């Protein structure tokens, strides 16, 4: 009999990083499988998902925020918002969690070789994009120019802020940060993410745009991108519906006939246009 797909594998939280504070705080958990062999077998692509178990509280599907190029540790960046994620925020280094996966299709990084990559994120939508831009930054010869446009409600809500500033300083990618409302000492753009995209007017030539964030942001970002000449097949996003099993059995994450946990979460806008409005 093949391995039980519902069985989580024990993993140790090696480090916890506080990304943002407050009621909806965000933390990054750096996690290693206890079993070396499992660690080696867990091969994932940027944009894939994993089901995390917090003992006694349940499971939550979280996108993998690290890139396979950054070693065997997995990173999960989690906002404290639901029942399981709230408990997750009590985890400390050295504690055990359960991990099963990886799930989903991930980003088609191979198809994007030779292209410029434009990442557009909002709020807690950045972690899945981080998996892809880290992969691209670690494979500079494979991709053209990399641009990261990212915004949050306030400067305190920006995740990976230090890391993004380092990337910007290194010159490996162009990073454009924004916040929704003006703050003292903020040197970047003030306004919503789609407005920042409009202001920057990135070229659509030989460029793939990848966006993730609140549904309403994605909607308006896509509108801007189409205005800039991006073809629907060159715009990608991740749709993360509620999932319980992660393996296409429990029946809730579908958009029409498509199960997001198996065929997604990454879809091109071209694919989304052909889907029923069920998300």
């Amino acid at each position, binding site marked *: 009999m093949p391995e039980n797909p519902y069985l989580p594998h024990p993993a140790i939280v090696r480090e916890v990083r506080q990304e943002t504070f407050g009621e909806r705080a965000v933390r990054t958990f750096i996690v290693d499988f206890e079993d070396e062999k499992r660690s080696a077998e867990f091969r994932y692509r940027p944009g894939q998902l994993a089901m995390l178990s917090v003992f006694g509280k349940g499971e939550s599907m979280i996108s993998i925020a690290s890139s396979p190029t950054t070693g065997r540790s997995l990173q999960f960046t989690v906002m404290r918002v639901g029942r399981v994620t709230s408990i997750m925020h009590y985890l400390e280094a050295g504690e055990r*969690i359960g991990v099963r996966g990886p799930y989903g299709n991930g980003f088609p990084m191979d198809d994007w070789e030779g292209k410029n990559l434009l990442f557009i994120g909002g709020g807690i939508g950045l972690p899945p994009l981080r998996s892809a831009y880290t992969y691209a930054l670690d494979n500079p010869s494979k991709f053209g120019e990399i641009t990261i446009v990212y915004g949050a409600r306030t400067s305190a809500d920006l995740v990976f802020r230090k890391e993004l500033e380092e990337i910007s300083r290194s010159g490996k990618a162009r990073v454009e940060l924004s916040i929704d409302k003006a703050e003292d000492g903020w040197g970047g753009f003030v306004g919503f993410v789609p407005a920042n995209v409009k202001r920057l007017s990135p070229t659509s030539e030989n460029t793939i745009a990848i966006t993730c964030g609140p549904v309403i942001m994605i909607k308006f970002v896509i509108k801007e991108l189409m205005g800039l000449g991006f073809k629907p097949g060159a715009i990608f996003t991740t749709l993360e519906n*509620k999932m319980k099993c992660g393996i296409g*059995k429990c*029946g809730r994450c579908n958009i*029409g006939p498509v199960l997001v946990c198996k065929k997604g979460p990454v879809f091109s806008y071209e694919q989304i246009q052909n889907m029923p409005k069920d998300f």
Partner: protein
Amino acid sequence: MVNDERPPEFLPQKNLLGFIEKLIELGEVYAPKAVGPVIDLGMIHDPDEVVVDFEQTRQGIRTIVEPQNEVLLTYDAKSTFSEKETLPLMRRRIVLWCRPCDARALTFLDDNFYDPPFVDPYYARRRENLILIGLGCAQPFPYCFCGSIGGDPFGKENLDVLMTQVIGGYLLETVSEKGREIADHAKELLRRPTNDQMAEAERIHRAATAKLRRKAPDVTKFSTEGMSSFESPIWKRWGEKCIGCGICTYLCPTCWCFDITDTETKGKGYRMRSWDSCQFPLFTLHTSGHNPRPDKASRVRQRVMHKFCYHPSNYPDHIACVGCGRCSELCPMDIDLIAILNELSEAGEKDA
């Protein structure tokens, strides 16, 4: 007719209890029995528990292959998950007298639980040790419409043995190797049927489909053209009627959706699987507050579209309805599946 097919056998009525005893020797037996005020498939320990004169059991076979609640995994205070105590035993389960439609429903549950690359081991272990003895429907029930949706009151799909009630007993047709084992085990109780009995059974088979009072429209086109029904105005109307109780999905033999939750008692944890329903708003509610199916119209649409459009578009020709009629018969608001299908079908013809 396959050459090695075993000729039909006859089980005299007086041998029925003995036959059930033989089945109990071979494994756990599930049969129609009184469960509170209804007749349902349940485990029996004594042949006398079996209700011989039953119509449709309240539920189909789902409850036997995917119980309403089950423990998937256990875990201890040290946070180690285990499947050791919870994977179903490889134990033979025999269903005596399921209706052919309920047996057919397993085709769609199989589609889901065996869909590669992940096999659901809980389902698979029960399914692979399941023996189904069907009882054909000589007199279909008021809400049945199997004949117009790919089924047959005496259909043999997924069955190991098909029984037909004739005067003085039952005609047995063994359909599979497992069915032959059952017949062999009970061979001293079986007789060679007379020509009259054979003819009577054939007459009953032929007459049964014609007795079906209800008919679904041709729904085969929904798998290719059904998406146009997504924006249909009918969903709002049916949604307004629905009270969201979920009974249609709980009694549907082709429904399989479930939830997974954790509970903890005395330092021991249990990861549970429980039936869930697309008719409940929490089914799809995101933590953010966003709900892709926020109203009853979208949830009624999901139930119908999944069975008649989404599933067959993923598994060609597999319309995930067997025409048992339970959803319509037991809906407290009289939401009638055939009426919905008729409206969709008529709308489709107008568009064409």
